[in-house]
């Protein structure tokens, strides 16, 4: 039957065609996959296949569309020593994409490194919900939301394969070793600010002397809930940040630094204004200075620093002139440099205070005695006239 023979032949061709297409497809897929030659076609964890079968091999890379290279080797000894390694986390705890269970991995390859990070960091909230939420609400989170892809996400500060524990497991307090390296973490993105900080009295003590009494970035900016430090409200409440450490005598006594800088600031016109502003309208722009307007933001120097220190009169005058452009040399003494007036420092102020400390009780006391005597006369008058009648 020629017709039947014809049909059989056609079927043969279809099968061949399909085989060819599948074959080509397979070759194509293999070719585009990672540069792996002899690998099992199907990852089956139940059968003992593991991510580390491939990813523990050294120098594995994946070139992304952007031309960037994604390093796909996990150094297992480093990971084992990390907080996640210590907690025995498995790869798929974070890398939850079902496509990864297949080999070659299914699913879309990220176009660039940043896109990959932005996909991955969302896994962090599975275990670190609180920190994750804080970060979403932070300055970084807001910038990301606004479309700035460079805004820091979890993994920018904490490499999930390498991050050690930063806090004491029981107390939750930051470990000293971790504190020491905080500015380096922030420097990854904020290198110019880091350079300024590292030169400052605080930064130099930390980076050169490993002094942990000084503030690192997070002491002023917070950790995950980092707020925008350029807002009016941040500026208005900033003196409290400085006061936290500078009113702490335990910390300040070591360096012979006065602990009443905050009180003397508040006693001054500037501080009084800022405090009243803060209470009244925390979002208002204030033209009165807060600590960092005179002392510097990240570039805070010791008052004795010849070039920048405010104990040096020319430097102080320069500082005054930032807001009081027309002033002459005498003017800078109108600011009492955090001194509480005494016969040595600012004697005129001291004696004016003393004068009124004597005059007010004297005058008011005298008046009270006089008024008291009049009341006495009237009361006794009434009693006498009452007795008469």
């Amino acid at each position, binding site marked *: 039957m020629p017709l039947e023979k014809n049909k059989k032949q056609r079927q043969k061709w279809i099968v061949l065609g399909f085989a060819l297409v599948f074959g080509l497809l397979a070759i194509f897929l293999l070719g585009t996959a990672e540069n792996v030659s002899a690998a099992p076609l199907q990852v089956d964890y139940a059968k003992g296949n593991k991510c580390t079968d491939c990813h523990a091999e050294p120098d594995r890379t994946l070139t992304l569309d952007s031309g960037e*290279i994604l*390093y796909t080797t996990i150094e297992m000894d480093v990971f084992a020593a990390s907080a996640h390694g210590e907690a025995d986390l498995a790869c798929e705890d974070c890398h939850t994409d079902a496509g990864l269970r297949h080999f070659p991995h299914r699913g879309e390859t990220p176009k660039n490194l940043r896109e990959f990070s932005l996909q991955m960091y969302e896994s962090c909230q599975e275990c670190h919900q609180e920190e994750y939420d804080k970060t979403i609400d932070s300055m970084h989170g807001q910038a990301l939301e606004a479309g700035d892809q*460079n805004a820091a996400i979890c993994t920018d500060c904490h490499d999930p394969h390498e991050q050690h524990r930063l806090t004491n497991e029981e107390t939750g307090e930051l470990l000293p070793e971790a504190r020491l390296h905080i500015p380096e973490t922030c*420097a990854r*993105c*904020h*290198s*110019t600010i880091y350079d*300024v900080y590292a030169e400052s009295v605080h930064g130099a003590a930390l980076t050169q002397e490993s002094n942990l009494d000084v503030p690192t970035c997070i002491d002023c900016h917070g950790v995950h809930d980092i707020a925008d430090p*350029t807002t009016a409200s941040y500026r208005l409440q900033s003196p409290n940040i400085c006061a936290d450490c500078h009113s702490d005598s335990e910390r300040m006594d070591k360096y012979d630094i006065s602990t009443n800088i905050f009180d003397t600031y*508040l006693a*001054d*016109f500037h501080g*009084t*204004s800022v*405090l*009243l*502003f803060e*209470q*009244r309208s925390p979002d208002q*722009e*204030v*033209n009165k200075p807060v600590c960092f*307007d005179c002392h*510097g*933001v*990240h*570039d805070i120097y010791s008052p004795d620093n010849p070039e920048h220190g405010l104990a040096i009169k020319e430097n102080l005058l320069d500082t005054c002139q*930032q*807001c*009081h*452009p*027309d002033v*002459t040399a*005498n*003017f*800078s*003494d*109108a*600011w009492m440099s955090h001194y509480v*007036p005494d016969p040595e420092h*600012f004697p*005129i*102020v001291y004696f*004016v205070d003393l004068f*009124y400390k004597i*005059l*007010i009780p004297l*005058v*008011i006391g005298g*008046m*009270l005695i*006089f*008024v008291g*005597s*009049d009341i*006495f*006369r*009237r009361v*006794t008058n009434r009693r006498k006239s009452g007795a008469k009648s």
Partner: protein
Amino acid sequence: MSKTIKTYPRFTLPQRIEHVVMLLSFTILGLTGLPQRYPSNGFAASLVSLLGGVENTRNIHHLAAIALMLVTAYHILVIGYKLYVLRVRATMLPSFQDAKDAWQAFTYNLRLTKKPPKMGRYTYEEKVEYWALVWGTVIMGITGFMMWNPITTTRYFPGEFIPAAKAAHSAEAVLAVLAVLIWHMYSVHIKRFNKAMWTGDLTEEEMQHEHPLELAEIKAGEGDAEVDQKTLRKRQMIYFPIAGVLATLMLAGVYIFVQSEETAITTYIPKVEESLPVYAPQTPTPFP
């Protein structure tokens, strides 16, 4: 059968108006000033809030200060007119008799003396108030000028004068407010509600009680003599030009007080360092 009670004039209408202006400016100055002396006090904060913030509070304080300066200038001119043109006796000047009166009043109150002092036009109580106000206004004016114009002040004086002025200004304020609350309140409101500053008059009984010597003088016709028209004109011709110059000088003084300098920039300029690029990633580490 309402028989009109005999009254004696005590304060003229202009004097009473002057008192009201003084009273208002003093109260406003106190209410806007004291919260700045005690900024961490909760009541101070609410008061500043009520007044629309600390800048507004300061503006109100300055306006009240201008009112006080103007009324002071007016007072000086009127005193000059009364003393030179009308040649009234300077009954407000303190004298040794006042100290004696005060002592007698005190011992009388303590029942050590039988009789209270007999006093004239102005009693020691009133003189204490008047001269306290003069002292206070001078101190507040000078120290207020220094704080309002620190740049001008430090061009001629040491910088330390500014915090010293502030110390004096705020301590003097406490003294003045307490003195008014204690002395003034007691002597004209609590002891006996004295309405003379509002009605302008005192009754014969009140005069007899408080100003017996003055009453006796009035009855004896020994008050200030009337100046005849001719002398009055002559003196006015001399006094008015002088008063004009004085008034101009004092107004210029107030203008200088208010306008002499722009102390500080009005808008906050962030520091240069803050304009560093915020995002400045480090050069990525070479690939491992």
